[in-house]
Every structure is written in C-alpha cells, then in structure tokens.
C-alpha cells in the first residue's frame, strides 16, 4: 500500500509569549498508508495534537519533512479535512445544512442544488438529517461532532484528521460515535489519522497505533492493533494490554518527573 502521509524526522518548536523556545516533538518519523485508520496516542503534552496540526498545515516543522501525497505541506487545505475536539468548530450563523453546503461551495466541490443534495446525503450518513435546519447552538455535543464529521467528509478529503473528536463527549455518546466512525470509514474508505488519549478508542478504531512519549514528544512504538471490531474478544484485550503496558511506563515516568519537579 502507498504512503499518503510521510512524516520524516520532524522536530517542531514553539516560542512561548515570554520568548522561550521549547521543543514539542523531536525526531518523529512515521508513514500513514492509503485507506487505513492511523491512531496517535500518548500522555498529555506529548505533542500528538501538534503533530496532527503539522499534517493539517497549521504549524511548520523546524526540521524534517511532512509530505502529503508526495508534496511537502505548506498550508491548510481541503484535501486534509480536520475535525476538532472543541464544539465551536461549526459556523454558528449557519444552519447545520448551510455549514455543509458552504463547505462544498467554497471548496468548489459542488454548488447550487447539487451542493444541497450532497450536503443532505452526508447529513443522512451521519444520522442528523432531521436537524439540518437547526443552528449549531441548538444541537447537543454529539450532534455537533456528527455535523462536523459530515462537513469534513462532504468535501471528500484525501485524509480525515481528527483531534480527539470524541474527547468532550459522555461515555455513551462516545461509544456510539466510535462505532459510527468505523461504519463511515467502511462506507467511504477515507484515510483517517485520529489523535486520542483513550486506550480503548485506539484499540477499537486503529489499524495501527503510534504510541508517543512526552518531554520532548517522540515515538515510542508503532503497534499493529489491526482493527479489532469485537470489543469482547481476546484480540481486543490483547491490544489494549499492549498499549497500556507501553503507555503505563510513560505515565509512571511522567508521574515521577512531576513529583521531582515539586
């Protein structure tokens, strides 16, 4: 399978408001294959969101390369749709339908009646066609995320980037949306890069899971979880065990460091 995303020896640095530089991630390399669900997991502060933003084109690496489709990423674009964790990613002055129609129109994917029909199709796909004429503030958190996913899928991106998309949802809604995401992936075949801090989510959704360590953010391992759909089976238990062991070490090390810092 071809690699759609190549991240090669990437270092990303930030300058904080006081002018101090610090390294968010360093020496990170990985590849994402066409049509796979690639999950990035790690403790907080490991730079997983930063890494996703580099693929999206919001931050530039100070060393190394981020290639999408063989081309270095220079700026954000509709070939890499992003679904964020925050609920305020929809345009509040547009209805749910208009949010999707606008995305289709402004990216040149469709216009006029065709755009409305396609938008309805994607809203139906994520199960919120009934809320098409509502404004975002009238939706629950789960419905907002569904709408954001519909908007992202509608522009038919090469890659769907998801930054802890279900992180702010309650457990029941979260499980529901995880299942729906698997179904949507099966229907569309889109390549997904998903950032999460949930082991269960990583094991359930990922074909492969990139486990990161913090301070500075770096790759610890890439685990083949191989898309375990049966959450009660032995394969799922095994996958979560492996991830937990890899992350457990990191979490303990971090706890020790934080203790030392005090």
């Amino acid at each position: 399978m071809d690699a759609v995303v190549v991240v090669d020896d990437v270092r990303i640095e930030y300058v904080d408001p006081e002018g101090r530089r610090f390294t968010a991630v360093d020496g990170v390399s990985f590849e994402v294959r066409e049509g796979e669900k690639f999950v990035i997991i790690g403790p907080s502060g490991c730079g997983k969101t930063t890494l996703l933003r580099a693929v999206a084109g919001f931050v530039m690496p100070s060393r190394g390369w981020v290639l999408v489709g063989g081309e270095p990423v220079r700026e954000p674009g509709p070939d890499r749709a992003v679904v964020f964790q925050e609920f305020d990613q929809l345009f509040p002055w547009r209805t749910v339908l208009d949010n999707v129609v606008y995305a289709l129109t402004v990216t040149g994917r469709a216009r006029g009646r065709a755009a409305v029909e396609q938008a309805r199709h994607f809203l139906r796909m994520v199960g919120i066609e009934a809320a098409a004429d509502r404004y975002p503030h009238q939706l629950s958190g789960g419905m907002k995320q569904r709408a954001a996913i519909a908007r992202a899928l509608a522009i038919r991106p090469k890659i769907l980037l998801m930054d802890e998309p279900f992180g702010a949802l309650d457990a029941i809604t979260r499980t529901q949306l995880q299942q729906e995401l698997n179904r949507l992936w099966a229907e569309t075949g889109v390549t997904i890069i998903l950032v999460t801090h949930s082991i269960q989510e990583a094991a359930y959704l990922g074909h492969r899971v990139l486990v990161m360590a913090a301070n500075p953010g770096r790759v610890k391992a890439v685990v083949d979880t191989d898309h375990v759909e049966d959450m009660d089976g032995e394969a799922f238990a095994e996958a979560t065990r492996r991830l937990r062991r890899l992350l457990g070490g990191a979490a303990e090390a971090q706890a020790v460091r934080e203790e030392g810092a005090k």
Partner: protein
Amino acid sequence: MRGELPVTRPRPVAAPGPLRSPWARRLLILVGLIVFWQVYVAATQVKPLLFPSPAAVAEALVRDLTNLSIPRSTLTTLQFLVIGTLVGAALGLLLAAFSVTSSLGHDLLSVLTSVFNPLPGVAILPLAMIWFGLTPTAIIFVVAYATVWPIAISTDMGFRTVSPTLQMAARTLGLKGLRLVWDVLLPAALPHLLSGLKVAWAFGWRTVVAAELVFGVAGAQGGLGWYINTARYFLETPRVFAGLVVISLLGIAVEYAFRFVEFRTIERWGMKKAG
C-alpha cells in the same frame, strides 16, 4: 447603553390581570408620570413660560409635526448622523482590520484610541468650525470622529476573540485573506461589532444634537438641536419640550431597532454574550 437582562426566574406571586405584562406596567408608569406632571402644573400655577403643561407640549408637538418643521429638522439631524456614522464605521473597520493584520496597526490603534477616546466629539467642534466653516461637513466630521473610536476598539476586540478552532476550521476549507475576513471573521465578530455600533450611535447622537445647538443652521435646514435653540430664543418653551420629546422618542426607536437586529442575528445564532 445596555438593555436590561430579561428576568427568567419564576416569580412566586404574579400581578393580576393585564398588569402581568411588563409592557403594560411600564406604560402605566409613563402615563402616571405625565398625569403627575399635568396635575403639578395645574396645582402649583407654575409659569407656563418656565414649565409648560403636557397638554401644551402635546399641542406644540402636533402643530410642528403637521407643519413639517419637526419632520424636516429630524431628517436633517438623521442625515448628519447616518453619514457621519457611516464614515466613522468605515474608518473604524479599516483601523481594526489593519490592527489585526500587523503589529504596527495594533500599536497605531492603541495610541490613537488612548489619545482621542477621552476627547469628546463636541470638544472637537470649534476646531471643525475653523477647518470647515459653518458647513454640514463640520458636523459630519465631529460625528464621524465621535463614532470611529468605539467602532474601531470593539471590532478589533471582536476580531481578536474569534475562536481559534473556528478559524482553523475555516482555513482547512482553504479560506484566506479577504474571503476569510468577510465570510468568517466579520460574522464571528458580529456581537462585538454590534455593541460597538450601539456605543457609537449613543456617542454620535449626543454629539450631533450638541453640535447643532452650538452651530445654528448648517445648509438649508437646521436640525433638532437648532429647532430647540430657536424655540428657546423665542421663549416658546412648549416647543423646547416638544424637541426634547422627539429626541427621546427617536432614541428609543433606535434602541429597539438594535434589539431587533440582535434578535434576528446573534440571539438566533446563540452568539449573544452574557451580560
């Protein structure tokens, strides 16, 4: 000025009958005040030249409404106000856009607003008269001056507080430059923009009436300030009151126009800020 927050708490005891409506209660208070005024004038025999009765004021109001002197003056004042505010708003938006796109613009805006914001529009009037003479331009200049700062400050604040997530979501759609400003930043900053316009309108309204009082006639027809001042000159006190009533009513009307716009936009979209 801020509209009061709606009372959403359930009240244990409701007033009986039609008085349950806040509008009915407020109207009743207003009528009560007018009745008190009439009774006071009749009972104390205060000189009508100093304090006319509401009936006399109403009579003057109706007379000057029908002979079109009030409508003409109102039109003149509103013309000055609208043109001045449009100029102020255009300049304010430009300053705010410059301020969010460059650090020089940001520093420029903060210097300009700290120097000029404490200087009221009326204080600039003598200067405007030296520069532009007794022309409508002078009045429009002071109104534009009075409105530009509140609009620039709140639009700048509005642009700066647009949610970073929303901006990133817009940029993934390939939006940038003017299209990003027009399609996303402006509507997202609308709550601040509207509150800036409200403050600007209040400043502009006070400035235009004050300027007309000082100014007399600019051009063919004097405005409401001029109307009041002429009435004072001829000691037609009921007409002075009539002018004040018109100014107050117009103020209320504009306040409601703002509420209507807010209701149709930011309230409908769930973007209204608390407080």
